[in-house]
């Protein structure tokens, strides 16, 4: 048996039962990374020594009959946006090249407390800004379903690592779709929790009112297990919510979908959606109907304003958050500046890539004197309108469904020269981000090119359990599909 073909739930079960060793699990994943990752570009750093040391300690604890955490034996990769103590963390940016954080993000600390094994840091668009993982300062990542295509982004390396079985699960961060869209492009489950559900402490801030950490996995049950481990209030994040982590592992194999009301926004299946994507989404909705769910047409009329709203709010917050990269406390520092102002401006000009500069400039403009009311404040008001759309919809339906992305994975280079076309690819993921709602992408088949299509499900605030239960029911109906890339490489 090749342990890398197992789901995370299976890996932890077999580890705890003594059928599989932690060292065996880690070595199998390291061997795949060694063989395959040059072609994929999923990882920016692999921590083989620490992962093996952690595995040996786990094997010893199991042999001694000690209690083991809920993720014991699970091999998990972490997006480079999320800081890891003692392991180089760059967020895909030259401005942090070589930086070794002195602390763990809360989500990473909770993974370790649950006895997960952190195997490495995954590639991403620089500082979370991009939808293709081509904007990494170090290397692009490739989609394992078709290496000529992008894996989505910004958590593209996390998606590639899990889809290609280089890790059982990965953490990503999602500001406007950066977990859900790469999950969709790579045929994975990706969850953006309710804003505040998971501590942002140690997630390098992009847009603080939108950023959330969440899992990318090969099954809904895997996502539930990881989310349960990382969720919950944290004194280090004032916006983390004061309620206990949801008991997600209670999600059973049999889910009754009868009576479920699923809202499908007219705006989400319009002309801009690729026909194959529309067809797969309709097929998934039909399966829900077969099980007794009611599919209800609804309207989210402010959807068309969501991308514009998002790119003003997110860039404004980014321009403020990224002020911390000034060459003084960590990261790149320009040589021989004439004075302090030049140290700042040269360090930042040398350290940031073109997309990051573009967004800092847009955000700085939106907050600048004379334009604040017309751009930033207006965007925050439209954000209220977008949230009200959802509130009204949820009065009549339990859940909202539609495509995660209007298209499947596009060829490398297709959108890099046109930032606006890249931004518009986020049209279906940014509304839930702006409204702070939990949302999930579930694989629902493939298009004519064989590329995965994702269905996005959006739930009311804090209803992650319901969201995952329904996704689990649908996953059971549709079946799971494994990416064949590298299947010939046996452990």
């Amino acid at each position, binding site marked *: 048996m090749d342990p890398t073909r197992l789901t995370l739930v299976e890996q932890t079960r077999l580890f705890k039962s003594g059928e599989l060793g932690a060292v065996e699990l880690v070595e199998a994943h390291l061997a795949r990374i060694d063989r395959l990752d040059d072609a994929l570009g999923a990882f920016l750093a692999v921590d083989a020594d620490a992962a093996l040391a952690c595995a040996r300690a786990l094997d010893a604890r199991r042999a001694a009959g000690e209690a083991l955490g809920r993720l014991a034996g699970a091999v998990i990769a972490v997006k480079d946006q999320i800081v890891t103590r003692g392991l180089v963390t760059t967020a895909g940016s030259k401005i942090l090249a070589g930086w070794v954080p002195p602390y763990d993000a809360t989500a990473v600390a909770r993974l370790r407390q649950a006895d997960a094994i952190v195997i490495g840091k995954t590639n991403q668009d620089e500082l979370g800004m991009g939808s293709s993982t081509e904007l990494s300062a170090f290397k692009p990542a490739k989609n394992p379903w078709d290496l000529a295509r992008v894996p989505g982004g910004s958590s593209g390396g996390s998606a590639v690592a899990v889809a290609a079985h280089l890790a059982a699960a990965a953490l990503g961060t999602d500001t406007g779709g950066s977990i859900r869209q790469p999950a969709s492009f790579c045929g994975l489950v990706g969850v953006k929790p309710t804003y505040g559900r998971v501590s942002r402490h140690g997630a390098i801030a992009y847009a603080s009112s939108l950023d959330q950490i969440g899992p990318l996995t090969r099954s809904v049950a895997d996502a539930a297990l990881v989310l349960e481990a990382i969720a919950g209030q944290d004194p280090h994040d004032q916006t983390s*919510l004061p309620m206990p982590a949801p008991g997600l592992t209670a999600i059973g194999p049999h889910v009754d979908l009868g009576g479920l009301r699923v809202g499908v926004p007219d705006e989400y299946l319009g002309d801009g959606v690729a026909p194959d994507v529309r067809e797969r989404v309709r097929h998934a909705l039909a399966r829900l109907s077969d099980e007794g769910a009611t599919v209800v047409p609804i309207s989210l009329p402010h959807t068309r304003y969501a991308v514009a709203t998002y790119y003003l709010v997110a860039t404004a917050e980014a321009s403020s958050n990224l002020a911390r990269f000034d060459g003084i406390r960590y990261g790149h520092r320009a040589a021989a500046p004439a004075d302090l102002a030049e140290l700042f401006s040269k360090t930042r000009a040398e350290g940031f890539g073109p997309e990051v500069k573009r967004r800092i400039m847009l955000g700085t403009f939106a907050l600048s004197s004379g334009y604040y009311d017309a751009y930033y404040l207006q965007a925050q008001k439209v954000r209220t309108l977008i949230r009200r759309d959802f509130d009204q919809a949820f009065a009549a339906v339990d859940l909202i469904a539609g495509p995660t992305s209007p298209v499947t994975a596009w060829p490398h280079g297709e959108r890099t020269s046109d930032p606006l076309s890249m931004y518009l690819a986020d049209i279906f993921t940014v509304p839930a981000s702006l*409204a702070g709602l939990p949302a999930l992408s579930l694989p629902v088949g493939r298009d004519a090119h064989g590329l995965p299509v994702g269905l996005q499900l959006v739930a009311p605030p804090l209803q992650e359990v319901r969201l995952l239960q329904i996704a689990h029911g649908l996953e059971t109906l549709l079946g799971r599909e494994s990416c064949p890339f590298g299947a010939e490489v046996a452990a």
Partner: protein
Amino acid sequence: MDEPTSTSAATAIDVAHVARLARLALSPDELARLQADLGRILGYVDELRALDTADVPAMSHPLPFSSPYRPDEAGAALPRETALAGAAANDGEAFIVPKVV
């Protein structure tokens, strides 16, 4: 590069001024490219300005929870050498910056 279609601030954006505010030392080429890119992007986001939001409050937080305060007590902090370890210039006591005054 297409010109923005609106006659808003998009056409008038002073990218050199914004770059100074953002503490970015950009080359003339970069400024020219950003002038065009930001013009197009602002032309697109200008559609927001047509919405009537006179009676709509700005959203400051997506969920109605107030931020709690922790007790005002000193907690664990990083040791000095750890906090300084990531700095390109430090003297073991403090971060080093160019002379300010």
